[in-house]
């Protein structure tokens, strides 16, 4: 039973003349780590907004087709109910923090749900520890770096213990080191806690090694969907202009020149290993 399932999903914004995305049919299983990528304006963000019901409950417009998340029909359940199953992390960390201390921000969702104080305290501390920001719990948001702020945002959705976390370009406001930290936190959530991850990202160099599946969107449609190595090595992926990992590109160039590595690399480590294997002969 897939945790997210859509059938011929099409959506048009109220001011739009053509659909933001159309005819999207996907099945995502529990525990998957999906990297969703594609050129800007291809409909990735809009698709993510459907997963926790922002579409159609917050944004009006025309939604056709079917979408189920955690066995709930999205159209029939309010956002606050879906929010307990799907956590959403947005692009700009600054606009996701409302309170004047980190701890209070992480508690925000739980307060909204009316959870008892003892239980709230427990879950807040737990979320802060997993995301590695327990030491910052009394700081004000403006005292934090962008990377730390984004980790607070992740802790805030984590505290609500969702089965799925959707992250919409969480690192586009961050420097490479901050981004790397975020990806490691996300990877831990997936591998240690078994949370299903949907990560919208352009930085495939840093993310594809964590992914169990890559989806590429273009002009409102999902055009490629499958295991990272297969998808990123495909000719289509390169032609759309998604930034395929440099080592994967290196693999392709070497192959064209007649040097075959045993496996398609996604990270520098894998590439080094592959090159050593081949060159030692």
């Amino acid at each position: 039973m897939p945790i997210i399932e859509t059938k011929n999903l099409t959506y048009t914004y109220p001011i739009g003349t053509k659909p933001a995305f159309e005819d999207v049919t996907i099945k995502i299983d529990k525990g998957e780590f999906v990297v969703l990528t594609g050129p800007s304006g291809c409909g990735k963000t809009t698709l993510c907004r459907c997963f926790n019901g922002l579409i159609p409950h917050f944004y009006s417009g025309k939604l056709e087709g079917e979408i189920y998340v955690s066995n709930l029909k999205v159209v029939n359940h309010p956002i606050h109910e879906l929010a307990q199953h799907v956590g959403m992390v947005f692009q700009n960390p600054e606009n996701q923090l409302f309170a004047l201390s980190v701890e209070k921000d992480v508690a925000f969702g739980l307060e909204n749900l009316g959870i008892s104080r003892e239980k709230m305290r427990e879950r807040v501390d737990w979320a802060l520890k997993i995301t590695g920001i327990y030491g910052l719990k009394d700081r004000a948001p403006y005292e934090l770096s962008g990377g730390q702020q984004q980790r607070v945002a992740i802790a805030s959705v984590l505290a609500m213990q969702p089965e799925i976390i959707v992250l919409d370009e969480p690192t586009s406001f961050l420097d490479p080191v901050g981004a790397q930290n975020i990806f490691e936190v996300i990877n831990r959530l997936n591998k240690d806690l078994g949370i299903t991850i949907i990560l919208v990202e352009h930085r495939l160099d840093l993310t594809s090694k964590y992914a169990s599946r890559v989806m590429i969107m273009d002009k409102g449609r999902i055009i490629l969907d499958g295991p990272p190595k297969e998808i990123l090595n495909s000719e289509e992926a390169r032609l759309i202009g998604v930034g395929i990992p440099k080592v994967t590109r290196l693999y392709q160039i070497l192959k064209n020149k007649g040097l075959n590595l045993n496996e398609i690399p996604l990270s520098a480590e894998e590439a080094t290993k592959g090159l050593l294997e081949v060159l030692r002969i």
Partner: protein
Amino acid sequence: MSMFDGFKFRSVNSSVHKMDPRAKFIYVCVMFAVAVMFSQIIPLLVLLIIQMPLVFAARVQKEWLRSMKGAAGFAIIIFLMNVFSLYFYGNYESLSAIVERSFALTLRFMVLIESFSVFFLTTSPDLLGLALEQSRVPYELCFAFTTAVRFVPVLAEEAQTIMDAQKARGLELEGGSFIKKIRNYIPILIPLIVNAIRRSLELAETMESRAWGATQNRTNLYVLRMGRKDFLLMLFSFAMLVVSVYVSLNVQIPNIIYLLNI
């Protein structure tokens, strides 16, 4: 901006900072009422001095001094205005009486500034929001309050960025008449407002995603509980009020000029 700096909360680990905002609020209200009750120099001077231990206990002397310095300019204006209006419209027999009364009214202003400054310097907006919430103010309002406070530094930074960007394109902010100066700021205000609206949409989206409005019985991570110090402060405030009412009704407060026999 120096005067407003004297009202900006700074996190200091002191017993005054830890006090319940509600107790401090009662204290400020009492101070306000008492200051308005008197218009003679002696009681107002007493009010000004009696608050100082609180300032030192909170270890915010520097910021407090800054707020007083910032208020000094206003104080001078108030003083001069009073002298002026009392001279032409009041029926005082001597100039020294006028000066004394004007000075007393200026002192009253300083007392008010002092107590507000102590309140805002030592009360974290988070606790203030919490105090509002626990005083049964609707949560939406409390949330709006804390969020507004949270975004002040963000907006200030954004305004600076926009200003720099517009200046880089040749916008002149200084110079010109008063009206011209105001008009100069339009190219800064418009992007600022547009950005703020865009930001509010993103905030709304995030709120929705964190189960905003899931239940009527919202809980809170923190609870405010009144401690011994809070009761002491309230007791002190109450005593102040009683004594002041008594004094203002029954005691003839001497004037300084009378004492000095000018």
